């Protein structure tokens, strides 16, 4: 009965609230988060925004299981880090299972860092040579984010934009916006915007 019903609901003429979420996704590595996200994981193509309450709130730990899994696939493309605020520490990444030979660190010049950061982010997204691109930008206009979103879809790449928490007030065309704050032994994740995802905070545990 349930199978018949689900087959009926597959019909393209029937639109449901969560049906927009029929996208290819990557498991996040956190079952609680998978459940809350549309499609059950990070989208494989598109732009998402992560807004940590402060730098180091656990925003990277949130992504690392997915990064590790994706760089270890045989057909893996690059995992690019655009304008990281500090040096990504290779032993820690390797310790989490990230294949370092797939990691590409892109550091824009000091002058006009913001501008060349956005440019490099768009290029890496659009090129189709990356599976996932992480970028740290201080300011990004909705118009620019729209461009980045289109570039990510074209390159079949997951773009992750880290922005300060204050950016949550501005509207954004990103498909998914997530706020992250530190919590005991992990992080508290709030889905600010998701097409058909859950509402409310999700507690995650990182520490082994």
């Amino acid at each position: 009965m349930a199978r018949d019903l689900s087959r009926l609901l597959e019909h393209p003429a029937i639109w449901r609230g969560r049906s927009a979420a029929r996208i290819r996704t990557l498991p996040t590595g956190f079952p609680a988060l998978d459940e809350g996200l549309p499609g059950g994981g990070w989208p494989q193509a598109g732009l998402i925004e992560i807004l940590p309450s402060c730098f180091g709130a656990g925003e990277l730990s949130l992504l690392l299981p997915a990064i590790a899994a994706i760089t270890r696939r045989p057909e893996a493309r690059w995992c690019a880090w655009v304008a990281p605020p500090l040096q990504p520490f290779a032993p820690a990444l390797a310790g989490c299972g990230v294949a370092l030979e797939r990691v590409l660190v892109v550091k824009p010049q000091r002058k006009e860092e913001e501008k060349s950061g956005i440019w490099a982010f768009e290029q890496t997204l659009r090129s189709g040579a990356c599976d996932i691109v992480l970028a740290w930008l201080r300011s990004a206009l909705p118009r620019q984010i729209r461009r980045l979103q289109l570039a990510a879809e074209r390159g079949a790449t997951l773009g992750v934009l880290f922005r300060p928490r204050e950016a949550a007030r501005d509207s954004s065309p990103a498909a998914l916006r997530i706020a992250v704050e530190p919590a005991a032994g992990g992080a508290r994740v709030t889905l600010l915007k998701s097409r058909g995802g859950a509402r409310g905070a999700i507690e995650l545990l990182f520490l082994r």
Partner: protein
Amino acid sequence: MRHRRALELPFQESTAAQAPQQPAAPRSGDLLRPPAGGPDRAAAAAPAELWLAVHLAASPPQPARQDLERLGARAQRLTPRVSLDPPDSLLLEVKGSLHLFGGVEGVSREMAGECSHLRMPGTLAVAPTPLAALALARAGRMLGVPASLSAASASLVVTDPAQLIGKLSPLPLATLRWPQDTLDRLARIGVRTVGEVLRLPRAGFARRFGTAQLQTLDRLVGRSSDLKDRFEVRARFRRRRELIHELESHAALLAVLEPLLGELGEFLEARQCGVLALECRLRHRAVPPTRCVLRLAAPLAQPAQLAALLAERLSALVLPEPVRACELRSGPLVPRVLSSGGLWQPGEQGGGAAAQAPELIERLRVRLGAGAVQGIRTVEDHRPEAAWEVREPVNSSGRDAGRALPADAAPAASWPPVRRPFWLLPKPRQLDERDGLPRRRGPLRLLGEAERIETGWWDGGEVARNYYTAQDMRGVRLWVFREREPPHRWFLHGIFG
């Protein structure tokens, strides 16, 4: 052997005992006779090759390599087989061109014409082997045959291999350009001409003067073949386009450059080459031209890719004046390794990033600088600052795509076994301290036990630290350490993120 006894060297007796162990240089027979069992190629009736040597007269200032290359490029009109013999000679294989230019005389007259055109008078000689032609030309100069501007003088032309040795015999040994030491030693035993040296026994000669000289003699008389590197003109692409209107906008400039890039693409495609450097010159009315140089990491030939890179460069360019003409110049051409395209799209099952990856790195580097794009790797060192290093990004071509780790395998035995922060500060930052505990925007709470890192005393980078995981007031986990030596300061070294 009997009839040559008079010319045999004084050390002949001592070598005779060893000779049977060396079948390569039989002691019986002299240099004129072919080695036992070897084919006598010099006996063939018509020469397989005919070489024209040009010995340039400009001495003592020897002609520059560039001048030689210019002459070589012009000589390619006569034959495709031109090779340079620096510092002062040029060799042309003219057998195939004889009927086109009216025989040996015609070809040498044409070549002399080229020499006089470049004001580089030279002595010309023709012989069935390159070395013989060179020796004849040098001899012609030594013996005072005038550096002719018409044709090779008849005394320096040998077309019949049977006459070659007869013609070479009277030449002084200096024409072979052997080391002065060898020439002196030969002179001491009374050998001064090519003919005399050819009459020496092979085995003794090889032992006393080296097999290299013996091989020279074999090549000289055509007994062994002499392969010469073919000189090829270094082709460059250069096109200029005058504009009907003066242009200021970058987009319009790019539209003008596109057909030029298309021509460049065809030019490179025809030669199976790519370029590593491309210069675009934009000429103005009054000020000197604006130059925009593109340097590439891998040879590139696709006009679309070049256009995209050039567009990046141009957009960063400030034009002092409107542009009246543009010119495209390629750097040296580099052979390109062609690869087949993939069937799958990137991101699909089986579709790697092989094609796009170098292109992406290229584009980022053109704009951000070569150092802006890096890979990273771990180094086995306990000091955190020495435990990683920058490396050239690994090209994720099909070659190493196959060796990627299986997705479901457990992470490789991670090193170090302890949890490390994802972010490392470029330099440890000193923290304030109160009551023996570090502070950073409020007091830090230490979590867990200390991890002691004490190493590096052998290379001057000695560290002795107790590392802790700490949590600040906002809940951010930090990686801090305390010096084990006085003054026991606290430092922040990483952020867990």
